[in-house]
């Protein structure tokens, strides 16, 4: 009776192997194109501004989710942000222990709606909410226009 037995090895039964393979190409969209090109070429982050409610969206969006207007105005995100929350990852996605914990943070910017999740480039003991940080970018020639053009966030004063 299957319900009453327990096995961790499906191969004990008659079985077939399968693989749901799937590959994708994602477009960054109209607003995303502006964001990633500015990041790659000018090394800066853009937000899109809703002139109706005054919100500046990071990452920039084509539309204000509240007012439902198309956003065409872009503003620079302040270079300095703050850590809003942190976590130290001890296991990888498969549950294998990492050789050293990874530090991840949610970084927000004054006056900007939203924020970015990224690596926090400090030792775990130094990771804390409120830390003033800025983006550490790859060198101009290594940037391709992707979120990984940002290596992580580092303290403004170390």
């Amino acid at each position: 009776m299957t319900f009453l037995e327990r096995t961790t090895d499906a191969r004990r039964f008659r079985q077939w192997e399968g693989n749901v393979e799937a590959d994708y190409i994602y477009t960054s969209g109209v607003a995303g194109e502006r964001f990633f090109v500015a990041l790659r070429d000018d090394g800066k982050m853009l937000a899109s501004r809703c002139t109706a409610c005054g919100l500046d969206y990071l990452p920039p969006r084509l539309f204000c989710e509240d007012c439902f207007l198309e956003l065409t105005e872009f503003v620079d995100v302040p270079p300095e942000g703050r850590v809003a929350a942190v976590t130290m990852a001890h296991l990888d996605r498969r549950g294998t222990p990492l050789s050293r914990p990874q530090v991840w943070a949610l970084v927000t910017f004054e006056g900007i709606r939203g924020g970015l999740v990224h690596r926090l480039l400090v030792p775990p003991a130094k990771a804390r909410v409120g830390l003033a940080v800025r983006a550490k970018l790859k060198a101009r020639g290594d940037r391709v226009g992707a979120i990984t053009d940002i290596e992580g966030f580092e303290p403004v004063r170390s």
Partner: protein
Amino acid sequence: MRKVGVIGAGMTLFRRRLQETGKEMCFEATKMALDSAGLTRADIDMVVNGTAPDAFDGVHMKGEYLLDGCGGYRKPYTRVFTGGGTGVFSSIAGWWHVASGLADAVLVVNEEKMSSCQPHPQSVFAHIWDPILDRPLRPNLVWIFAMEMNRYMHVHGVKKEDIARVAVKNKRNAVGHPCAQLADPKITVDDVLNSEVMAWPVQRLDISPPSDGASAIVLASEDFIRRRKIKDRAWMSGVGWCIDSTMWTDRDLYFPEYVARAAQTAYKRAKISDPRREIDFAEPYDPFDYKELHHLEGLLLAKKGEAPILTREGVTERDGDLPVCPSGGLMGVGNPIAATMGQKIGELFWQLTNQAGKRQIPHEVHTGVAQAWGDLMPLWW
């Protein structure tokens, strides 16, 4: 049950690949629908999203992902999914939100971004099969349709050229559609018959290719429509949906019994006793040309085996006695699965409110029926 009307509709271009993200496409369609109804997002009580498998866009739980583009921010929001049937079924979900009295004004927004999936969206269809009975044989979805088409042709003695006429009609009808991907004013029956064989009897031009796109409609209660003095509205007088055996091998392939049952439910609700006489035009689901014929018979608008004859005689042309797919359908406008709501429910709204432009049926029409098919079998009108 309260009376429900469609008061606005919008849709994006349908293209093989669009730069816009799924959210951005949803925003464009939703904004158009709101503008056409003369409403803003603040007027909307609830939002329904319809979108097909996550595997197409390549985003898991894409209903949540698309929420902001659908106008769902801080609103009661639901995603429904019934395969290709989503093209009509999400409208039915919107209908029950309003008919039940839960909401006065509802947005229904459908989306598909199939170009994300590489090398072809067909590749993820490989995973809809039974993993033990079917997948070891490495089947292709087109095989099922080919066998269904073959069975339909065999039972009624239908000629391939009479089926090809549907592709020709719809691709020509789509010439007046501003969103169309596949309009072709010069296409002939021979073009269809000479196109590449994919899985006999299905040839390249018998099938609508995948696409990117979004569509949206606004539904409202009779009371809301009166209060806001909204002039352009099309009433949803009946809805129905039905599913057959989960095993396609157990179905009667030559006749879609599930469509007939869904249609009977909708006709009963709408107090229609003689659909062929009381319905002025139809938007049946046409991902393949033969499917339009199959579905017309399921909708009881043609006797079994009669739909190819009606097509040959020109009855289903835009200026015929029973115009079918005046939008250009999936065959002519394109097939971003769920977003085909634009050619089905959207077209009914545009035709019934005299806003179909070059596609407007030349004679007066009062009642239309739209239908979509997927794993589930919904129908609307």
